[in-house]
């Protein structure tokens, strides 16, 4: 009996690998003659969640959740507020303990760093010292990390004088200076204005491609999810109800027809209403999309 299950599991992983290879082929096909995918040094860790459960005061937030994340993959978790997506992130981060289930990493004792919605910079430390937190005085590394987020010239200032976007960039530098195998992003761009948000998305994408860590981003912004995700996970009522790979070439253009169609499809899925038929004559879909986003957010 046990052996049967094991062989089934093996067969499943094989199938998954096959599917992944096919996916990659498809992605390459899709990108066509565009720039080849950058050589990624796989320093990330794979994550395997099995039967994860979490309840707060008797109310189940996560119900037997299964999820496998490959090393170096960019997974975006979306869902309505209160669906349990942040709880999932906090469980992976080890900030909270699951009631049941297992959580495994492929790397032994991987470095996990979290970027929170509020930057959580220590106001009494200079920008540089904030980045160097827990580095044992290796300020050169911290300086380098600040340069990566284009804030090297603000190293000596207090966090209080920075703008919201700059603070989040410092928080990103602080997370990346530890060379994490897994970076968890808990709606880090939720409080930023639209332009800063797009800038930050590009920055995160660039650094992720350069470093090759595994990234899990929680967001309620479908456009942000599509812009960044290898794979989108929709959580509804404590369970994964959609696992969608995104095969658009990076960097992704928001005006792209495929992008818009995917966004519409996902939004329709979340809102439980039929997707519109793709209409090329309509031209600019963005206005309608924004309206959709607003109704969802409300």
């Amino acid at each position, binding site marked *: 009996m046990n052996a049967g299950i094991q062989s089934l599991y093996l067969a499943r992983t094989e199938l998954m690998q096959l599917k992944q290879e096919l996916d990659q082929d498809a992605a390459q096909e899709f990108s066509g003659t565009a720039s080849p995918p950058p050589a990624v040094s796989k320093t990330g860790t794979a994550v395997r969640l099995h039967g994860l459960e979490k309840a707060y005061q008797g109310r189940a937030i996560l119900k037997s959740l299964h999820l496998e994340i490959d090393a170096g993959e960019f997974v975006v978790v979306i869902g309505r507020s209160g669906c349990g997506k942040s709880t999932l992130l906090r469980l992976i981060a080890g900030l909270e303990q699951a009631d049941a289930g297992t959580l495994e990493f492929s790397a032994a004792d991987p470095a996990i760093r979290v970027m929170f919605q509020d930057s*959580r910079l220590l*106001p009494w430390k200079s920008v540089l010292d904030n980045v160097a937190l827990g580095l044992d005085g290796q300020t050169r590394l911290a300086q380098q990390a600040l340069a990566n987020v284009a804030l090297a010239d603000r190293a000596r200032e*207090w966090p*209080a004088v920075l703008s919201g976007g700059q603070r989040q960039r410092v928080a990103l530098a602080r997370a990346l200076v530890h060379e994490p195998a897994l970076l968890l992003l808990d709606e880090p761009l939720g409080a930023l204005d639209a332009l800063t948000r797009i800038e930050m998305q590009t920055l995160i994408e660039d650094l992720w491609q350069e470093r090759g860590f595994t990234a899990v981003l929680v967001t309620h912004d479908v456009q942000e999810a599509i812009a960044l995700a290898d794979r989108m996970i929709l959580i509804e009522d404590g369970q994964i109800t959609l696992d969608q790979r995104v095969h658009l070439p990076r960097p992704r253009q928001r005006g792209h027809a495929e992008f818009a169609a995917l966004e519409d499809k996902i939004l329709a899925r979340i809102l439980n209403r039929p997707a519109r038929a793709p209409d090329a004559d309509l031209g600019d879909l963005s206005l309608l999309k924004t309206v959709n986003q607003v109704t969802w957010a409300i």
Partner: protein
Amino acid sequence: MGTLTRDFHHPPQTAATADVAPAAASARLLRQWTWLRQHLLPWLVPLLLLSSWQLASQTGWLSSRILPEPWAVARAFWSLSVSGELFLHAKTSLWRATSGFLIGGGLGLLLGLLTGTFRVAETLLDTTLQMIRNIPALALIPLVILWFGIDESAKLFLVSVGVFFPVYLNTFHGIRSVDAGLIEMARSYGLSGWSLYRDVILPGALPSILVGVRFALGLVWVLLIVAETISAQAGIGYMTMNAREFLQTDVVLVGILLYALLGKLADVLSRRLETHWLRWHPSYQSRSKR
């Protein structure tokens, strides 16, 4: 209407060139006036009070038994300083204040850190401390005299007890109100134990602790005045009590003024500490920029 048309016809250039020098001069005058107003005006009322006080004493309207003339106070101040008596008393009082503050404040800080950090310590100690807190320190005087006699230790004890509670309460509150998000972040970034305490908890509690310190510094002098009236051999309190016996109202006033001066000194010192230690705080940044 007539004036309006005349203004229109008036050549503007000549007016401008003619007004350049006087305009600069008047601007300088205005600056000087604002400087004067900012720096001298606050002293106007005290000066007026002082001179009317002097006048009232000179005309005999105010008896020197009630209030000596300001000039006599200044003379007493001078003679006391020349004889070295003033310095001796001030030194004794200052020493009592600092040592009492250090003992009481230090213990308050230590226990505040303990109860703030460990729940066990809180459940064990806090109820007791809250009960003791509600006893006015000065109500202990009879007991303190029985315990310590009328010695130096009695005065130190009174000051320490009074100073202990503001520091203790504010330290405890400061530690408890450190942003939990920051602690969570620091833990997930590998900080724990002493480094977590040094980098996150203590700096987070510092604004509240410094509020406690300022409260305590204000209390030190109040307690000291009373403590020094219990049969002392030196100190500002002793000097004033002694002067009262001999109806030397001018010396009494010198003592009172000295307390005011030392109190102000302590306040300036604690402000300096705040602006240095809390220089990261937005409210202190704007102050230092100004």
